[in-house]
C-alpha cells in the first residue's frame, strides 16, 4: 500500500510536465472514475476468463498437476453425443423461452400501464417472482407439479382432464422448465417495458387518437416502434440468459429425467465438478462463450437496422 502510494508521486517529480498534462486531460479523470470498476472486473472476471482458456487446453481433474493437451478437449467435444443433445435442449429452451417471456412481458406491461385501482399490487405481484430465490422457486414448482400431490394435477382432475407426470416425464420436463423460468423472469422484462412505455410522448398518442386511429393501429404504428430499443435490449439479454440456463435446472430436475433437461451449462457443471474433467468443462464454456458472442452480435446487427431510435 505505502509503496503504491509513493509511485505516482515519484513520477510527478521526474516528469512534471507530462504528469500535469495527464492530470489536466479528461482522459485521466475518466479513467480514474472507472478505475474501481475496471480493476474489480479485471481481477474477478478477466483473469479467470484468461485462466479458463488455458484450462481448456489442459487435461486436469483440478486436484493433481495438469498437463497440456492442445486442442484435444475441443476435438473430443465434436464427437460427444451427450454434448450434442445438450445443445439441442438448450436451443429448444431458448427458442421457447425468449419469445414467450418477451411477448408475455409486453402484454403484461401494456395491461399494467394504466390508472386502475390496485395497480401497485398488480405490479408488485408481477415483480415478486423475480426477487424470489431460485431455490424457493424450484421447490414451489416441484410441489405444484408433483404428479400425486401437486395442485396442477388436482386442477386437471377437477376439470376432468388426464393426470400428467410433468417434471418426471422426459417428454414434458423441458417445457415445465420453460414455464417455471418464464414465471420467475417475466417481471424483469415487464419493468423495462413499463419504463419504456412511460417514456412514450403523450402528444404522439393524442395526435393519433385525434386522427381517428384505432387502439390497435396506435399500438402497432406508434407504441411498438417506440419500444424498439427496449425490445432489442430485452431480447439480447433474455437470449444470453437462456443460453446460460443452469440454476433452475440444478434446483429442480438436475438435468433429468433421463437427461431430457441437460442443457449446456448443466453438462459443463457435470463434467467439471462431478466427473473431475476440468479441462473439458472449460472447453465447453469457451464454445458456449463464442456461440453467445456470435448470437449477440447478430441480434445487435439486425437490431441496428430495424430498431427506431427516437433521438
Amino acid at each position, binding site marked *: *500500500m505505502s509503496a*503504491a*502510494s509513493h509511485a*505516482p508521486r515519484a513520477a510527478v517529480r521526474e516528469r512534471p510536465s507530462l504528469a500535469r498534462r495527464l*492530470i489536466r486531460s479528461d482522459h*485521466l*479523470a475518466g*479513467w*480514474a*472514475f472507472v*478505475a*474501481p470498476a*475496471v*480493476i*474489480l472486473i479485471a*481481477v*474477478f472476471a478477466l483473469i479467470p476468463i484468461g485462466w479458463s482458456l488455458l484450462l481448456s487446453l489442459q*487435461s486436469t*481433474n*483440478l*486436484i*493433481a*498437476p495438469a498437463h497440456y493437451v492442445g486442442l484435444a478437449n475441443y476435438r473430443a467435444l465434436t464427437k460427444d453425443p451427450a454434448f450434442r443433445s445438450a445443445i439441442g435442449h438448450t436451443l429448444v429452451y431458448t427458442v421457447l423461452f425468449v419469445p414467450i417471456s418477451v411477448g408475455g412481458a409486453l402484454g403484461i406491461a401494456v395491461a399494467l400501464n394504466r390508472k386502475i385501482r390496485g395497480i401497485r399490487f398488480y405490479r408488485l405481484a408481477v415483480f415478486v417472482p423475480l426477487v424470489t430465490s431460485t431455490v424457493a422457486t*424450484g*421447490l414451489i414448482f*416441484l*410441489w405444484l407439479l*408433483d*404428479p*400425486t*400431490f401437486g395442485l396442477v394435477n388436482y386442477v386437471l382432475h377437477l376439470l376432468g382432464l388426464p393426470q400428467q407426470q410433468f*417434471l*418426471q*416425464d*422426459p417428454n414434458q420436463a423441458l417445457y415445465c422448465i420453460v414455464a417455471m423460468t418464464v414465471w420467475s423472469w417475466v417481471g424483469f422484462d415487464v419493468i423495462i417495458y413499463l419504463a419504456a412505455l412511460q417514456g412514450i410522448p403523450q402528444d404522439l398518442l393524442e395526435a393519433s387518437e385525434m386522427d381517428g386511429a384505432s387502439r390497435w393501429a396506435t399500438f402497432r404504428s406508434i407504441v411498438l416502434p417506440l419500444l424498439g430499443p427496449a425490445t432489442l435490449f430485452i431480447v439480447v439479454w433474455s437470449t444470453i440468459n437462456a443460453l446460460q440456463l443452469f440454476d433452475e435446472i440444478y434446483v*429442480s*430436475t*438436475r*438435468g*433429468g*429425467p*433421463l*437427461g431430457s433437461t441437460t442443457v449446456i451449462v448443466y453438462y459443463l457443471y*457435470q463434467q467439471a*465438478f*462431478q*466427473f*473431475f474433467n476440468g479441462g473439458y468443462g472449460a472447453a465447453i464454456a469457451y464454445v458456449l462463450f463464442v456461440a453467445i458472442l456470435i448470437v449477440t452480435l447478430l441480434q445487435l446487427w439486425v437490431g441496428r437496422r430495424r430498431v427506431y431510435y427516437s433521438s
Partner: protein
Amino acid sequence: MKRLILLPLIAAALALSACGGSSSNGSGTSKAASGGTSGGHTTITLWEGYTEAEADSIKALAAEFNKSHPNITVNVQFYGNNDYALQKVLAAIAGGKPPDISYLYGSWAPNIATNPQVVTLNKLIAQDPSFDWNDFWPAGRKVATVNGKIIGIPALVDNLAVVYNKKLFKQAGLATPTPNWTWSDFENAALKLTNPAAKQFGWAYVNDASEDTVWRFWAMLWQAGGSILSPDGKHAAFDSAAGIKAATLLQTLAAKHAIYLDNGSDNYLSVFNGGHIGMLWTGPWDLSQIVQSKVDYGVTTLPGDVNHQTISGPDNWVMFNNGSAHTAAAWTFLKWLTSPAIDLKWATMTGDLPIRASVAKMDGYSKFTSKYPGIAIWAANLANATQARPQITVYPKISTAVGQAVQSVLLGKASPQQALSQAAQQVNGILAAPG
C-alpha cells in the same frame, strides 16, 4: 486533483482487501502454514461444513481438546455447505495454503488421493497399535483407502435401513417386518400398502438418476449376490442375473404404482411424515424430522434375498501436508477425536452413528440409543455394510450411467435387461478409456 489520483489507489486497495477478505478464513492457516510452531506450540486449522447440533459439537470438542493439549491449538473454521468443500479446498491447494484437516465427502477420495499434498496415513497408523484401525467399521475403512493408501480417517459412517409406518401396516393387515424378512415379504408389503385412491404408496425411491438413485440399487444388487464390477475391476458386472432380479423388483413395484418417485428434492420425507408412504429406505439423517412428525414408526434392516447387505456413504477427515509439526499435531487431534470415548460423546451429542465398532460395548452406549429411538438398528446395521463402491476416479461417470438405467426402469422406458446391458456397455467404455 489530488483526489483524482487517489481514486485508483483506493480502488486498488479495495480490490486487495477484497482478496484478503475472501481468504480471511485462511488467515489462521497462513500463520500456521508459515511455521506457527513457536516454543513447541502448534496451531492447526480444521475446515468443516457442519450445521446445527454437529456445528456446536465440533466447536465444543475442539475447545475441550485445546484445554487438555496445551501445545496444540485447533482452529475450527466453517467453510459453508459441505457440498462446496471441494472447490474451496482446491482453491486453497492452488494457493499453497490448504487447511491441515478438512472434512471431505468419501466419493471424492479417489480424486483427492491424486493430490501430492494429501498425507498418507498408513505409516502413522501402523506405528500406533493403540489407534486400532480395525476397530473402525469396514465401510468407513474402505472409503478412506485408495489403492492401499489410507488418505483419511472416517468422519461419518451411515447406512440404509427400513423405516416403516406402523399405523399403515396395521391398516393393511400386515405383521410388522422382522430383521430376517425377504424380498418377497417386502414386495408383498409394498403392494398391500399401496392405495391410489388414498394417495398412499408402499415405498419411496429417489428417482433423480444421481448417486442417491444408484446407491439404493447397489444395496439391492449386493443383497441378490451380485457385484458392481468384475473382480479385476476392468468390466461391469452389475448386468448379471442378480442385477436383473433387483431391477425387476423395481420395475414390478413401479408399474403397480407402489413407489412414490421422489425427484431428488427429498419430498419423500414430507410425504412419509404425512402418512402417505408405508416404508422408506433411509438413514439416521432423516430421524429427527420423523420423530418431530409424530408418525408411529419402526426401524428394521433392509429385506434380504441372498443376504441383508446395506450400503454406507462414509465421509473422511483428510490431512494436508503443511510441514511435520503440523502433520504431527493434526494426527494427534484426529486420533483423539476418533477415539472410542470421544466418538461416543460425539454420537450422543449429534445423533451420528459411532464410527468404531467397540463403542457399542461402552458404558454410555445405552444413553445414546435411548436418546435417539431406532438409532440402535442403524448402528448395528453397519455390520451389514460389508461392501463399498469401487474406489476409482471414474466412479462418478459409472454412477451417472447406472443412474440413467435405473431411472429408465422406474419410468417404464426400458426393460431391466435392456437398461442394464446398455449401462454395462457404457461402463465398459468408461473403464477402458485411458486416464
